C-alpha cells in the first residue's frame, strides 16, 4: 500500500496535478510518525510512510494548507473522510485546492497502545497480515492486530470513504460498531458512580489543549477558552469546576459536528477517554432526533442547528430509562 501511495503521489506531483503531498513521515522509532508535507519525489522516497501507526487524521491540516498557493494531495483514511466533509460543510477549506485520495485502513495502533501491553524499550515492529510482532530490548512479543488496536479502531464506525477524488484499494462499508456500548454502560450506572468515574478521569486533565488542537471540529479562529473576552477563558484548570467546564463546553461546541474520529482520546497525554463525551452527544442525537453522522455528506444540517416541531422535551432526561 505504501508503495502504491508513493508511486501515485509522485505521478501527481510530476504531472502537475498537485504541488504538495500531505502524508505521514517516519520517525526515530517505528511508532513515532509525524504528519508532513512533501514537495519532492526524493522526500517521498526517503520519508513517506503508511503503516499501522499512521493514526493522525490529516484533514484538519487542510484548513492551513489550502491557504497556501497551489494544490495539495491528501491521503485520507475512511474515518478522516468524514472530518474532511464536515470541514467542507463548514466552509473551512477550499475543495478546489485539494486532491484527495482515499486509502484503506485496517485499524491503527500506537506506541502508547503497545506500551500499555507492558512492553518497553521498543526497537522494531513487524507486520505480517494480522500478526504484529513487537521487538524490544527486553523481549519479542507477537500480537493479533485486534489486540493492540486503538479503542476507536476496535469500534470502527465505517470503512467507507465518503469523500475522495480517487481511491487506492477497495472501499469498505459502514459498520455496525458497538461504539456506544461504553456510553450505555455509563448510562446504566448510578449518578454517583458516573460522577466518580468522570471526576477521576477529568481530574487528570492538564489542560494541554491537545484534544482541542487536534480536533478537526475545533478550527475556530479564536477559541472561547483562549479569548479573555468570552468570560470563560482559562489557561489552566484552577478548580475542578474548570476541568468540567472545559470538557463540557468543548463537547457541546462540537456536538452534532463531531464525526467521532477519536483523535481527542488518542492524543490525550493522560489517556482520558474524551471520546465518551462526544459519543454521548452522538448517541443522544441519534436516539432523540434520528440517526445523524456528521460528515457523511457535505452540506447536511447539523442537529443543533436544526429542529422539528415534534422534538422531545428536555424533561426526557428525567424520565429516560436507566438511573
Amino acid at each position: 500500500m505504501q508503495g502504491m501511495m508513493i508511486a501515485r503521489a509522485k505521478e501527481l506531483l510530476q504531472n502537475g496535478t498537485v504541488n504538495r503531498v500531505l502524508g505521514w513521515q517516519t520517525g526515530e522509532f517505528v511508532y513515532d510518525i509525524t504528519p508532513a508535507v512533501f514537495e519532492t519525489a526524493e522526500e517521498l522516497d526517503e520519508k513517506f510512510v503508511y503503516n499501522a501507526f499512521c493514526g493522525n487524521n490529516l484533514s484538519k491540516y487542510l484548513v492551513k494548507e489550502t491557504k497556501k498557493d497551489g494544490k495539495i494531495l491528501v491521503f485520507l483514511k475512511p474515518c478522516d473522510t468524514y472530518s474532511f466533509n464536515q470541514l467542507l460543510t463548514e466552509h473551512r477549506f477550499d475543495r478546489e485546492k485539494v486532491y484527495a485520495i482515499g486509502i484503506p485502513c485496517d485499524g491503527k495502533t500506537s506506541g502508547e497502545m503497545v506500551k500499555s501491553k507492558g512492553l518497553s524499550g521498543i526497537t522494531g515492529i513487524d507486520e505480517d497480515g494480522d500478526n504484529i510482532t513487537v521487538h524490544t530490548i527486553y523481549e519479542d512479543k507477537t500480537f493479533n492486530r485486534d489486540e493492540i488496536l486503538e479503542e476507536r479502531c476496535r469500534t470502527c464506525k465505517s470503512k467507507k470513504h465518503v469523500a475522495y477524488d480517487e481511491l487506492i484499494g477497495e472501499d469498505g462499508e459502514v459498520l455496525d460498531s458497538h461504539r456506544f456500548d461504553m456510553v450505555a454502560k455509563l448510562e446504566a450506572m448510578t449518578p454517583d458512580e458516573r460522577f466518580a468515574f468522570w471526576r477521576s478521569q477529568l481530574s487528570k486533565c492538564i489542560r494541554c489543549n491537545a484534544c482541542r488542537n487536534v480536533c478537526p471540529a475545533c478550527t475556530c479562529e479564536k477559541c472561547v477558552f483562549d479569548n479573555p473576552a468570552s468570560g470563560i477563558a482559562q489557561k489552566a484548570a484552577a478548580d475542578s469546576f474548570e476541568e468540567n467546564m472545559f470538557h463540557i463546553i468543548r463537547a457541546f461546541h462540537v456536538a452534532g459536528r463531531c464525526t467521532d474520529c477519536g483523535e481527542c482520546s488518542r492524543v490525550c497525554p493522560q489517556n482520558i477517554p474524551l471520546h465518551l463525551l462526544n459519543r454521548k452527544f452522538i448517541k443522544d442525537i441519534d436516539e432523540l432526533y434520528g440517526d445523524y453522522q456528521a460528515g457523511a455528506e457535505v452540506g447536511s444540517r447539523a442537529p443543533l442547528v436544526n429542529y422539528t416541531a415534534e422534538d422531545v422535551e428536555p424533561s426526557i432526561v428525567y424520565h429516560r430509562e436507566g438511573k
Partner: protein
Amino acid sequence: MQKIGVFVCWCGSNIAATVDVQAVSDTLAKEPGVVYATNYQYMCSESGQNLIKDAIKQYGLTGVVICSCSPRMHEATFRKAVASVGLNPYMLEVANIREQCSWIHKDKALATEKAITLGRAAIAKVQLNAPLQAGESPVVKRALVIGGGIAGIQTALDIAEAGFEVDIVEKQPTIGGKMAQIDKTFPTLDCAACILTPKMVECSQNDKVHIYSYSEVTSVKGFVGNFTVSIKKKARYVAENKCTGCGECTTKCPMKNVPNEFNLGLDNRRAIYIPFAQAVPKVATIDPNYCNMLKNGKCGLCAKVCTAGAIDYKQQDQVIEERYGAIVVATGYNPIKLDKFEEFDYSLSKDVVTSLELERLMNAAGPTGGTLLRPSDGTHPHTIVFVQCVGSRDTSGCGKPYCSKICCMYTAKHAMLIREKYPDTEVYVFYIDVRTPGKNFDEFYRRAVEQYGVHYIKGMVGKVAPRADGKIMVQASDLLANEQLHIEADMVVLAAAIEPDKSARPLATMLTASMDTNDFFTEAHPKLRPVESPTAGIFLSGVCQGPKDIPETVSQASAAAAKVIGLLVTAKLTTNPCVAHCNELMCNGCSSCERVCPYGAITYVEKEFRMPDRTTQLRRVASVNPAVCQGCGACTVACPSGAMDLNGFSNSQIMAEVDAICQK
C-alpha cells in the same frame, strides 16, 4: 468604569410596603461604580423623571439603574426620560422589584434582600452596557405581489388604491388563478367570473399596477424596505404591446391537439392560445413544446394571419431587475395528484373526475358548454357520487395530514347545483365529517340536504370500479346504517386535497421565509400576526399560508395589503438596535448562525484580513444585516467561537447578571 445612578421606586406602597427602599438605595450606593443612589415615591411620575434627569446632569451619570416595576411597563418611559438629557437610552436598565419581588413576597427582610440582589444584577449589567443607536433604512415605495390569483389581485388593487406602485408576477399567461376556473361560488352561488373578471380588468387598467404575466421570480436579495428582485419574463413569442388579442391566430394554428390546461385537459387548444376569453393580459402565447415553427422551423401560419405583426419567433426570455419595499406571497394552491389513490380509479376511468374538473364541466365556458355530461361518452349522468376527504386528513403518507377546508362547501355547492339543474339525478355525498363553520355555511349545507335532497352518507368510499357497461361500481360504507353500500354510479367526483403550489418552496428559500412541513408559509405569529411572514417585509396572502376559501382569501389579501401600505408609507424604518453583530476577526464562516437565523439576516462575505504575522488572508465571514435582524440571539449560541454577540444582551452582560445574582 461607568458612573451609575440608582433610583429606587416606592411605587406608592406597592414596593415600599414589602421592600425597605431606603435599605436598598443605601446598600446599592456602596456598589462599585455607583455614584448616586436614591429612592422616590413614583419614579415614573414627572417629578420622579425629573429627579433622574437632574441626577444625570448633576453627577454626570453614564449609566442608570431603576429599581421599579417590570421593564415591560416603563422601560420605554425611562429610556425617553434619560434620552431627553442626552444619555443614550440604552445605558439604562430596570430591576424589576415589583412584579418579581414586592408583589410576590410577604417577608420584608427577604424581599429587601432580593431587591438588592436584583439591583446589583442590573448594576452589573449597566457596567457593560454600550450606547446603541437605532439605525434607519429607507423604504422603496413599490410592492411586489407574487401570484396573480384572487389573493394577489386583491392585494395589488388595495395597495394601488393607496397610491403605491405594485407589480404582480404571474407564471401563467394570464392572471385570474384558480378562481377563474371556478363556475359558481358558495354560499351565494354567484358566478365566479362575474365577480373576478372586473377585478382582473381593473388590474390591467390601473396605472399603478403592472402585471408581469408568464413570468417568474428568479432571485430575491436585500431586506425589508429594500428588496431587489429578478423577474424572468418567459418568451411568449408574441409581442405583448402589439397583440390585440383578436384570437385569429388561435383559430388558424394547425396544432389542434394540445391539452387545454385551463380546462384541466378535458378538451384541447392550439399551440398558440389565449387561455380564456377574459384573460388579462389578453395576449396570445405560443406553447414552445407544441409549436411546429419553434420546434422544426416549419409552419409560421400564425405570423401570416396576424395583422398586428405581433408574432416574434425569435423572442428570448428576459430578466428584469426591480426594487421593492415589500413583497407579498400569493402563490396559491393546486389539487394534489391522485395517482396514489388507485382505489378511486381516477387515472383509469374518465368518469371519475376531481371537483375542479367538475367546475369546468359545469361552466358555460367549459368544454361541454355548461351541460353536465360524462367525459367518457357525453351522456347525461343519473347517479353521481361525491367522495370527500380524498387525500385530506391522511396521515398514511398518500395524502396530506391537514383538512383542506374548502371541500365540504364546494361539494355541497356542486351537489346542490346538479340537483337543481338535473332533478332526475341522484346525488350521494360520502363524508367523514361535514365541516361548515362560516357565515351562512351550515345553512347552505343543510339546504343541499333538506331542500335539494342530496344523500349525505356518513362513511367513506372504499372502492371505485368501472364496469364494462359504462357504469361505475362504488363500494362504500354507511356507518350509521352499519352496512356496506354498492352504488351503480355514472360519475364519481373526488374532493381532492389541496396543496401549496410547487413553486412556493424554492420561492421560500429565495425569500428566506419559513415554511411548515406541508410547504405552507409560516406566519409571524399564528394569532397576532397572521398575514406577515417572520421575515420582515414579506407578507402572506391567500392559500399559500393555509387552506382558505375565497372570502377568507380576500380578507387576508386586504389585510396583507394594509400591512404593506403601513410599511410603504413609512419614510424610514427605525431598526431595533438590540441586534446581533459579528466579530469578524473571530468568525469561522461556518454557517451555523445562518442556519438558525429565522430571518435570513446573516449573509457571508469574503474578506481580507491582516494576520498577526503580517500576511493577508482571505476569509469567509458572517455579516448581520441590522435592518433584518430581530435580535432573538439564536445565532449567538450556535456560534462556537463566540464571534456572534447580541447588543443589549451580550454574553458578558448576561454573565455579569448571573455573577451578581449568585454572589453571596
